[in-house]
């Protein structure tokens, strides 16, 4: 089989990732530097919210916020933020908390609803969007336009995921710089490493594609994919599962390394379930994940591992993608989603399925098409 015949959007996007990261970096830098100093100091807590991939970008960036700004940071589901979260969390002190809302279209109802609620209760709001004229951008106090070229290919989301994460990292760095919780030296070095790390990983993508294609051929008829990841790596796990669903509508499930041992371990026909584990040697739960991988081995499930650790740490018959180590641990989720994205992209092509069920009219009705925007009522609680 010739890999060239199975070109797909996720592959094309990942091959141009460095180029796009640089565009976003250049666009975002002057904008984050305008976030007022007083507001940064006023932010006693930080909330990051969004739907789907945007929420995951928040989870992925949470360790960056915690370690750089030293502030309590919550990555929260859009519906939890707009409907469930206790009012007490909003506006108890001027400009607090700082709420970062992500939506590239700027039209997702739930995110607009969250922004309106935050503004009404006296919190400070920053929108991350590709549309500075959107309702979201207009609702928030500040807007950061990621400046992605209009004609790019962004579906299923990959570049957008990285753009959200990059912008979040840069906001964290701005806060860290203003609050002096990182030194100017660290600030410069972290900024540089963002681009250097991207560049180092970009060089590996062709190689990943080769291996991803092999795995895709083996995995295309599996019953499901099961993802395991802790904390920030949970975002990578969840993101992988979302790509499976978007690319070919496959069955997926996900959990953290501890709860997996209590629940998903018991899934039937383990040999027909592909397990995908993301872990890094610096993560506090590295030891726990290794134990979990031993349990995966007992089940004889096909397993791929994305890590910066040495291949020898893991059982021999598992597919280990050793990706470059980032100088700062919190950067890993920025690039580690790519190996599995490529697998998902190739499986979609091998199955001959269109992404987002475009080939099925059932998914193309008014009720389906309006489900995120006009089909959902905005309520301020």
């Amino acid at each position: 089989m010739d890999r060239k015949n199975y070109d797909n959007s996720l592959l094309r996007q990942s091959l141009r990732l460095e180029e796009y990261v640089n565009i976003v970096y250049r666009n975002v830098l002057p904008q984050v530097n305008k976030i007022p100093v007083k507001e940064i100091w006023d932010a006693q807590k930080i909330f990051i919210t969004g739907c789907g991939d945007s929420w995951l970008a928040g989870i992925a960036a949470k360790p960056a916020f915690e370690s750089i700004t030293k502030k309590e940071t919550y990555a929260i589901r859009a519906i939890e933020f707009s409907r469930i979260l206790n009012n007490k969390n909003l506006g108890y002190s001027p400009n607090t908390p700082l709420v970062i809302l992500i939506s590239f279209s700027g039209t997702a109802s739930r995110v607009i609803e969250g922004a309106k609620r935050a503004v009404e209760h006296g919190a400070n709001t920053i929108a991350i969007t590709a549309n500075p004229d959107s309702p979201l951008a207009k609702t928030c106090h500040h807007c950061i336009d990621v400046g992605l070229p209009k004609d790019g290919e962004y579906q299923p989301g990959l570049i957008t995921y990285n753009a959200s994460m990059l912008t979040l990292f840069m906001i964290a760095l701005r806060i860290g710089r203003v609050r002096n919780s990182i030194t100017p030296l660290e600030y410069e070095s972290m900024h540089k490493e963002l681009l250097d790390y991207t560049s180092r990983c970009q060089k590996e993508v062709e190689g990943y594609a080769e291996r991803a294609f092999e795995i895709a051929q083996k995995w295309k008829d599996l019953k499901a994919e099961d993802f395991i990841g802790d904390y920030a790596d949970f975002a990578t796990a969840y993101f992988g599962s979302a790509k499976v669903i978007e690319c070919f509508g496959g069955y997926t499930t996900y959990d953290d390394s501890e709860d997996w041992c209590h629940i998903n371990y018991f899934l039937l026909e383990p040999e027909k379930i592909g397990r995908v584990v993301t872990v890094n040697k610096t993560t506090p739960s590295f030891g726990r994940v290794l134990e979990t991988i031993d349990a995966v081995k007992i089940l004889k499930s096909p397993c791929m591992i994305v890590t910066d650790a040495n291949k020898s740490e893991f059982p021999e018959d598992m597919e280990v993608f050793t990706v470059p180590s980032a100088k700062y641990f919190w950067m890993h989720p920025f690039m580690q989603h790519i190996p599995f994205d490529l697998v998902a992209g190739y499986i979609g092509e091998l199955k001959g399925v269109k992404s987002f069920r475009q080939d099925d009219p059932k998914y193309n009705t008014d009720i389906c098409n309006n489900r995120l925007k006009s089909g959902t009522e905005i309520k301020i609680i």
Partner: protein
Amino acid sequence: MVYIKEFRLTTGRDSLQKITAEINETVKESKITNGTVIVETAHSTAGILKVTSFGEEVLEDIVKEMRRIVPARINYIHQDSPENAAGHIKSSLFGSSLSLIVKDGRLLCEGKQEICFADYDGPRERTYSVCVMGE
């Protein structure tokens, strides 16, 4: 005759680092016996100071006093970090260059006097230049 040399250093937070030895060395290298020395840094949040040092505590007093005069407020109009905004002002107020006299191959510097590199927004990688002029 003119002799110019550039130096690099890594600073700390609120650091005053003595650079007298480097300047003396440069004067010696320049073989100039009578003339002037200019020490200058091109950074906007750093400075060159001449201080009389009876010990490290004196340097600490200077740093503290500068912070009192120019506090790292959060409401400067310049919206970089408070440390940076205050640093710009300290750099302008306290100077970023210094002229000294060389006589008979030696700096005219009293025994306890030291030339210091001050970083108001460190730690960072910094540079400064020493220029010796004369004959």
